[in-house]
């Protein structure tokens, strides 16, 4: 069930495109409701809190803490084979939302709950930079 574009390349949606355009510039941008102020991730056509369609994109701090993590030892696709072991994490941004990401610059045995992290971007193609999180001071 492999695909031509590969698993590492996000299937960019019309809604999500601003996120990826910001990522190319090294910025983490998250959808935000202009009416109630809620951050929305993954992006949607509506605010799930107030159902407003009055949404915008905001650059966020890029800082957060590791809420959970799991180190993958078995790649599901050859595309990831050279990366194992790699650590997938759920990072709670200072703005309150959870982001699924990949820890950078952290050995698997050094990953920890509550670790303070900050965003970095890895350019995987001309179009795509993926957000990773590394330990922050």
């Amino acid at each position, binding site marked *: 069930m492999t695909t031509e574009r590969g698993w590492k390349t996000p299937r*960019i949606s019309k809604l999500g495109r601003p996120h990826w355009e910001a990522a190319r510039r090294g910025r983490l941008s998250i959808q935000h409701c202009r009416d109630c102020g809620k951050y929305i991730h993954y992006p949607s056509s509506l605010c799930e809190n107030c159902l407003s369609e009055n949404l915008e994109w905001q650059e966020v701090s890029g800082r957060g803490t590791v809420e959970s993590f799991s180190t993958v030892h078995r790649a599901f696709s050859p595309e990831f084979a050279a990366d194992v072991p790699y650590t997938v994490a759920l990072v709670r941004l200072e703005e309150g939302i959870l982001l699924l990401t990949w820890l950078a610059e952290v050995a698997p045995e050094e990953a920890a709950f509550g670790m303070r992290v900050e965003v970095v971007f890895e350019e995987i193609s001309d179009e795509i930079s*993926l957000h990773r999180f590394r330990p922050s001071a």
Partner: protein
Amino acid sequence: MGDELRGKFCIVGVGEAPSPYVADSDHWELNLIACKRAIEDSGIDKREIDVVISTGSMVVNRPRHHVVLCEQLGIPLARFTENSAMGGGAPTSNLRHAIAALNSGMGKAALVVGADNRLSGLGRGGAPETGPSQYHNAEFEVPFGPIMATLYALVCHRWMHEFGWTAEQMAEVAVAHREHACLHPWARFRTPITKADVLASRMVCTPFRLLDCSSFTDGGGAYVVTSTERARSLRKRPIYVLGTGGAYSYYYFEKWPDLVETPRSIIGAAADEAFGTARVGRGDIDVVAVADMFTAVVPIALESAGFCGRGEGADFVGDGRIGPGGGLPVNTHGGNLSYGNPGMGAQFNHLTEVCKQLWGEAEDRQVPGAKLAYVHNWSGNMSQHGAAVLGTELGL
């Protein structure tokens, strides 16, 4: 469900699809055999069946799956059909759908089925990829390389951290399921294992080692539901649906407010509804079946359903309590962990197994005198929950 529905509908027959895995088993064959066996077990004339709810497939993409089933089973006129592809959560979720249809007067007797051939249909290599392709957000999750186990691992790891649960405690869950499976002739894995075996198996995705993970198989099950009035003139002792509960909310983890409290509250809502309608206490239950795609979800399921206190799940599943002969046997067929996980109908055998327990038909696995059972199935990323309290006439 409404209190007035307590004991108003009954499961009157169950059927199980051929297991264990045989090469080249066919999705439709598994569905049809499970349905045939359920109809025969109930003794009902198939022409009485006018509600058909199927669960679809991870292997075969077949719109109107439910109507094709009617055709192949020779059910001449169904009044209510749906393909409710609730995955693992389907057995109890679709029980609620069946009762809703019957109680509305749209039908008199319901056939509910879930069977799939995930192992032979997708293969050992293809099966793990169904995680990325079906469960994970292709834009914001898949590029970060989660395998099927990773999203569950993220939740379970947080629970283990929060409450100090250990890998050794989770290994006891794997051992208990294998002990059950060793007593079931159709279980895919029937070689006894020890805690040391689990802890020595290769790491897949922390905190899950290979033997913390369920394994794929081909199989599934079906059951027939009808009114208590009709059930009393059929061949088997009715199994009364005393209460059901449902809770559906978040799907992708990014929306969860909290990795511990969110699943706890959703599971708790389904369980509270089922127990509340049934007017049965957790301590009254003789046998349990719960989702067990990974070891650590079993204590999460039991604790969240109120079988023990906050953070006590890992202690609760220890000391052989959930194994054969234990104080609260769980998944006596071996569960997804050792009986196997057939795909879209992943937990139908959980439900058919507790029915067999209540009928006294569980052979070497029989829990003596079982009269009340609790079943809780879920699917996706712990997102679609169905629960039911079932009982014999002694449990009424």
